[in-house]
C-alpha cells in the first residue's frame, strides 16, 4: 500500500501558500514566536520542491525587515518581538534565498551574534540567557553565511561542543545533557562548518544514529522514544555529513515520510495520522531530498538550505547524500 505513495508536491505547495491565510486563530497566534522560523521552513521546502517563487518575494522581504530589532541589532520572530538568535539565523537564510542580503546591516548583526557567546563557549539565544547548542549552531551558521566566521573564537566554541559529547558518541543541548538527535545535528553541523569533525567519534555516533530507525521505517530522537518525521532531517543530515547515509534503510524511511502526508489538505505531520504543520513539512521534504527522492532539488545538510546557494558562496563541505533517483 505505502509503495504507491508519492510526494504530493502541488498539494504541499498550496498548503504552504495558504499558511498566511490560516483560519485557525488560536494555533496561529500562539506560534508568533516561531513566525520567522516558519517562513524559513516554508521557503526552504518550496525551494526543494522546485517552487521557490510560490510566495511573494517583496512581501516576504518586507516582513523579515519589519522584524528588525533596532536596539539589539538582530531579528525577532515577529514585529516588535525582541531579537533572538533563532529568528536572526532564519532571517539571514531567507534574505540569502531571496537574494536580498544587501538589506542587512551585516556589522550590527555580527556584533549581536558575537555578543551572545558565553565564557564557556556556548551561545545564549538572547539577553534572557538561555543557552543551548542549538544557539551555538545558529551563530556558527550565520557567521559563516555572512562571511564573518573569522571573528569567532573557534577554540572556545569547539571546546564547548566537546563538553557536550556523551559516552554513546552523541551530543546534548548543554554539558551533561542526554544525547538527542537534534542536538547531534547542530553539533555535527557546527563542527563541519568549523572543519573540526575530528572531534566526533564517528563510528560510535553513526551507529547510534543508525539505531534511531524503528521497524516502521521512521526515526526517533533518542533510544526508546517514538518516531517523528523531523528526525528524518536531524539524523539524516548528521549521517550525510559523516558520509554514512547508507547505514539506515532508505526505502523504509521514504515510505514512512510519505505516509505522514496529509493527502487532503497537504503538508506533512510528525507521524502518519497526525495533523500537518510547516515544520514537519520542511523536514520531511528535506529528508526526502537527502534520500535522493526523484524530482527534488539538492539540499545542503550542513546549512539546511539549497545546495546550489551554498556552493555559490564557496561554503560546501564534504557531505554526501544518496544519488537522486530519476522520475
Amino acid at each position, binding site marked *: 500500500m505505502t509503495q504507491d505513495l508519492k510526494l504530493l508536491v502541488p498539494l504541499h505547495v498550496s498548503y504552504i501558500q495558504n499558511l498566511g491565510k490560516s483560519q485557525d486563530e488560536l494555533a496561529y497566534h500562539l506560534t508568533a514566536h516561531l*513566525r520567522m522560523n516558519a517562513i524559513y521552513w516554508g521557503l526552504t521546502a518550496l525551494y526543494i520542491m522546485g517552487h521557490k517563487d510560490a510566495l511573494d518575494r517583496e512581501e516576504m522581504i518586507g516582513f523579515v525587515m519589519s522584524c528588525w530589532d533596532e536596539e539589539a541589532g538582530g531579528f525577532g520572530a515577529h514585529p516588535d518581538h525582541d531579537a533572538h538568535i533563532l529568528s536572526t539565523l532564519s532571517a539571514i537564510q531567507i534574505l540569502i534565498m531571496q537574494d536580498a542580503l544587501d538589506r542587512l546591516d551585516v556589522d550590527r548583526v555580527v556584533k549581536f551574534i558575537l555578543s551572545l557567546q558565553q565564557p564557556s563557549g556556548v551561545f545564549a539565544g538572547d539577553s534572557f540567557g538561555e543557552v543551548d547548542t542549538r544557539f551555538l549552531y545558529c551563530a556558527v551558521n550565520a557567521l559563516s553565511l555572512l562571511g564573518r566566521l573569522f571573528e569567532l573564537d573557534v577554540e572556545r566554541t569547539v571546546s564547548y561542543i566537546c563538553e557536550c559529547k*556523551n559516552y554513546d558518541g552523541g551530543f546534548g543541548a548543554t554539558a*551533561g545533557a542526554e544525547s538527542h538527535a537534534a542536538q547531534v545535528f547542530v553539533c555535527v553541523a557546527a563542527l563541519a562548518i568549523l572543519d573540526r569533525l575530528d572531534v566526533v567519534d564517528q563510528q560510535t555516533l553513526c551507529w547510534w544514529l*543508525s539505531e534511531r530507525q524503528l521497524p516502521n521505517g521512521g526515526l526517533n530522537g533518542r533510544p526508546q522514544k517514538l518516531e517523528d518525521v523531523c528526525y528524518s532531517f536531524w539524523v539524516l543530515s548528521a549521517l550525510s555529513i559523516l558520509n554514512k547515509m547508507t547505514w539506515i534503510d532508505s526505502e523504509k524511511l521514504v515510505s514512512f515520510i510519505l505516509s505522514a502526508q496529509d493527502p487532503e489538505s497537504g503538508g506533512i505531520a510528525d507521524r502518519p495520522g497526525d495533523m500537518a504543520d510547516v515544520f514537519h513539512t520542511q523536514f520531511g521534504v528535506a529528508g526526502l531530498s537527502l534520500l535522493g527522492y526523484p524530482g527534488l532539488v539538492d539540499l545542503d545538510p550542513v546549512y539546511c538550505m539549497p545546495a546550489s546557494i551554498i556552493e555559490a558562496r564557496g561554503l560546501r563541505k564534504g557531505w554526501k547524500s544518496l544519488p537522486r533517483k530519476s522520475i
Partner: protein
Amino acid sequence: MANLQNQSALYAERPEWEDVVPLPQYESVKPLAPIFYTPEYKDATDYFRGIVKTGEKSLRVLDLTENIIRQNPAHYSAWQYRYKTLMALGVPLEEELRLMDELAVKYLKTYQVWHHRRLLVQQTRNPAPELAFIAGCLQEDAKNYHTWSYRQWLLAHFNDEALWANELDFVDGMLDVDVRNNSAWHHRFFVVFQSGVRKGEEDRNEVLRRELTYVKMQISVVPNNMSAWNYLRGILDHSKTPYSTLESFVAPYCEAEPTRPDDSSKDVVDLEDPFPSLDAHLPCAAAIEFMADIHESLGGDDNLEVAIELWSSLASTHDAFRKKYWEYRIREAQSRAH
C-alpha cells in the same frame, strides 16, 4: 456586575488599568503571515506593549505577564519582562517558584518555563526543594528532556554534597519503574562518572565493580535494552577496561537457547555473570554485536573469523535493518587485517 467577574474582564475594561496606553501589534507592512488574535490575547498583549513602553515594573505587571504566559507559555518577551519585574520589585521568589510549580507541570515542553526557573533558583540559592519538584515532573513525563537537563544543571551548578547524596537512589528508582528509560541511564553516567568524586566513592575500582554488577543485572532481566548496553560500553570505555573481560557474561545472550546453569544453583544469582531471564527474547542482537567487538579486539585470524561470522548473522538475520553497517564492519576489519 459583581467584581467576581473582574479577573476575566479585558484589561481595556478594567478601571485600574485606565492609565496605561495599550499599543496594538505593529503592522506597517501587510503581513505575509498575519496573526489572528482572540480578543483576550490581543487585549493582554496590547497592554503588555503599553507597559513595556513606559518601563512599568509593578505588581499588576506580574498579573498581566502571568495572564499572557497562561495563554501562551512560549511568549518569551513576557517571561523576560516578568523576571525583570520580579527583580525590580524584590518580591519573595519562593512564592514565584510555587506559581512556577503549577505552570511547569502544564507546560512541561516549553523552554522558557525551565529557564525562568533556573534564574529564580540562582537567586534564591535554595536548590534542595527542586529535587522533589523535578521528581514530581518526571512522574508525569519520565523522559522529558528539559526536566532531566534542569536536574543535571542544578546538581552541577550548586555542586553540593547534600544535593548529590541521594541521587543514585533516585536513578535506581527511575530505572525500577522503566529500565528502558534512556534519560535515566544517561543521568546515572552523569552522576557516577561525570561529576567529580564524592565522599564514599573514592575507591573508583569499587565504583566500577558496582556499576558493572548493576548493568549486568539489568541486562539479564531485559536483554533487549539498548540503553543498558550503551551504558555498559560507556563504563568500559571510560575505565579503559577491555571488552573481552565480559566474554563469559555475554556468551549466553548470543544463543537462542543457552544451556542454563545447574539446577542446584537456581536460587543463587551469579552476580559476575547473571544469566538471561527465563522470558528473555534471545538471541540478543546487542550481545552478538558486543561479542563481535570482543573478538575483533582480541586480534588474529581466528578471532576475526568469529567476528565476521557474528556480523554476518546480524546482517542476514538478527539486525537486517542495519545490513550496510554490519557489512561495513566486516570490510573494515578485513582491510585492517591485510
